[in-house]
């Protein structure tokens, strides 16, 4: 394989790498990936709450013989979805493979096949013309790719008030069933719609890459609440569902276990240097073109390391978050709605009158994680907290708002020796949270500004804009075709090449843009 000259090498098999590679299938293409997979084992059969009630002991499945479920008790906290015995492979080894130093940016990277999308919430949203304003792309350029993606992965949702922000999509599968709480919110919103809209708040159904009907051999969502514990749920789109068949059919080659460190270009050939993560063996792979889809942070490292540049400070953006708990008082002490799901129930879009920014968020139920994950956040004794969580959970929903990424001169990413160094500061005013709390209070959902939480910068896992696309790119920027300035045949196809980071979840656009860049390259090859 090392002797071969490929038409293209794609680094990474997350949403970016997978959809770039898919466009090039049939050519001589190699996907290089570390590519960890979930541990083998029989899937959990049934629903989380039925299993918990009926199976005497679920220690191996929910905590794990290696105590994976206790991760946040003794190590840097990670998303609750990424610390169960069967999902912890998503973050396996990332700190060793890609060290990152920061005092104010809590990043995470994945070296699994499928990348972070092994654990994603599957919210898929088209960027509209306002959100693409800073991208050097003609209007409507991404639409055909979004359409193709929708047909390929299957998207459920509705065409409601949010069409104004999400666009109308006639090809959606029916929306997911709402929990009692979410259905109540939507009903009351519809009655008070005018007042909400006047305050810049719009509510509606989320668009999710989660099937509610069979699609391409995959089965619909079973409302089993197992998202925190069970990988490869066929209803929730995962890039491995696309890449595995392409590899099996021979349309693409995949080399797993390889960590790409840097590249070099000479005489129309890109040499890609990689180290095997198990054996430590070094290898050089050769191709006419290189597509970097290793995730924003890892792609940035590869570029900086290739140019051996420890001086350059590149911009980096993420979506700061605010987490707002809301309570429906009349549901205190109700039976927990165990057929709820931990996926987004509703979306909220808010136009902040002060900044003019659009914020987007999702309402989640609380049935996904174990109670022990959240109990000790209450300012109560452990026993009192147990009672509160038991009786309040049925009444509680979490509104997770994303702010757009803002470009700040002091926020940067750079290479320092072997580590990426990130500085990221962000300070919100709390204004949007207060406005949302006021609006929800009017329809009977209560919360307190004091209970709002602001996860550390980096926790959104939405990273981008380190090598932004520009009409006339300078060094460390990319052209509209994704090509990295000062290179002949190196393309960036993940969030690193975004020109801006709106509050809307980015992955659908990462996929669409990766397709667009790879299709352009394919045309060039032909």
């Amino acid at each position, binding site marked *: 394989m090392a002797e071969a000259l490929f038409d293209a090498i794609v680094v990474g098999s997350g949403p970016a790498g997978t959809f770039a590679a898919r466009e090039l299938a049939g050519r001589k293409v190699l996907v290089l990936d570390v590519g960890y997979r979930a541990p083998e084992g029989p899937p959990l059969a049934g629903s989380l709450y039925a299993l918990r009630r009926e199976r005497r002991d*679920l220690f191996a499945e929910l905590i794990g013989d290696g105590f994976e479920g206790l991760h946040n008790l003794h190590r840097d906290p990670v998303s609750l979805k990424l610390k169960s015995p069967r999902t912890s492979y998503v973050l396996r080894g990332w700190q060793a493979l890609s060290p990152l130093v920061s005092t104010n940016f809590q990043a995470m990277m994945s070296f699994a096949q499928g990348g972070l999308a092994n654990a994603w919430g599957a919210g898929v949203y088209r960027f509209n013309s306002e959100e693409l304003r800073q991208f050097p792309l003609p209007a409507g350029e991404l639409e055909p790719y979004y359409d193709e993606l929708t047909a390929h992965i299957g998207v459920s949702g509705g065409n409601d008030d949010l069409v104004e922000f999400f666009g109308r999509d006639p090809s959606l599968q029916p929306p997911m069933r709402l929990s009692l709480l979410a259905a109540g919110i939507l009903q009351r919103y519809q009655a008070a719609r005018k007042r909400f809209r006047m305050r810049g708040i719009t509510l509606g159904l989320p668009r999710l890459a989660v099937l509610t009907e069979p699609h391409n051999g995959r089965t619909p969502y079973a409302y089993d609440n197992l998202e925190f514990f069970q990988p490869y749920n066929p209803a929730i789109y995962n890039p491995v569902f696309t890449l595995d068949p392409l590899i099996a059919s021979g349309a693409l080659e995949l080399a797993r276990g390889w960590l790409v460190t840097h590249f070099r270009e000479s005489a129309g050939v890109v040499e890609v240097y990689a180290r095997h993560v198990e054996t430590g063996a070094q290898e050089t792979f050769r191709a006419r073109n290189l597509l970097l889809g290793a995730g924003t942070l890892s792609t940035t490292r590869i570029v900086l390391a290739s140019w051996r540049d420890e001086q350059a400070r590149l911009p980096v953006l993420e979506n700061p978050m605010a987490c707002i708990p809301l309570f429906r008082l009349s549901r205190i002490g109700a039976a927990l709605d165990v057929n709820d799901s931990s996926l987004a129930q509703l979306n909220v879009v808010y136009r902040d009158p002060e900044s003019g920014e659009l914020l987007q968020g999702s309402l989640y139920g609380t049935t996904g994680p174990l*109670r022990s994950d959240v109990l000790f956040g209450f300012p109560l004794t452990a026993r009192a907290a*147990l009672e509160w969580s038991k009786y309040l959970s049925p009444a509680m929903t979490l509104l997770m708002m994303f702010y757009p990424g803002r470009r700040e001169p002091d926020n940067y990413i750079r290479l320092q020796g072997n580590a990426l160094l990130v500085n990221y500061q962000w300070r919100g005013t709390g204004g949007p949270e207060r406005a949302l709390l006021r609006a929800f209070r009017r329809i009977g959902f209560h919360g307190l500004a004091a209970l709002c939480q602001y996860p550390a910068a980096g926790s959104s896992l939405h990273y981008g804009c380190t090598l932004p696309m520009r009409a006339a790119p300078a060094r460390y920027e990319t052209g509209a075709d994704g090509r990295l300035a000062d290179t002949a045949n190196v393309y960036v196809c993940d969030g690193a090449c975004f020109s801006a980071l709106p509050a809307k979840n980015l992955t659908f656009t990462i996929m669409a843009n990766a397709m667009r860049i790879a299709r352009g390259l394919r045309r060039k090859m032909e």
Partner: protein
Amino acid sequence: MDRSDQARLDAEVRYLHDAFFSRPLAAEVVDRYIRAVRHCGLDEDRTAEKIVRSRLDAEAVEFALRLRGRGVALTRKIRILFYLVEVRSDYYADFVNETPLFGRALWRLAASLARTAWKLVKGSWLVWRHGFG
């Protein structure tokens, strides 16, 4: 881990369990607790041992220390215990409400607030009296 450490952690988990749950403790939870405490690097901490030796109110001491930003290891040990029992069906009803109980729930919430206030007073006194660092 030598035998005395094992015995110390064994006594500790039994004492902590009795402070929060009123049912017999399964041997496998004891074994997992001991391994988990080691795994999380908490086996050196002696706060819980002191509580067990002096038969103190673990709930009160933990809360008083937590509010002071201290006793991190003790809180983590109690969290480990909660995790280990939450995944067992015997404890399902401790964590998940299955029957609608609006009035009773309000009463229980109010009572647990009062309990928290009382435990804070008691815990603060115990922390001072027994010199928990």
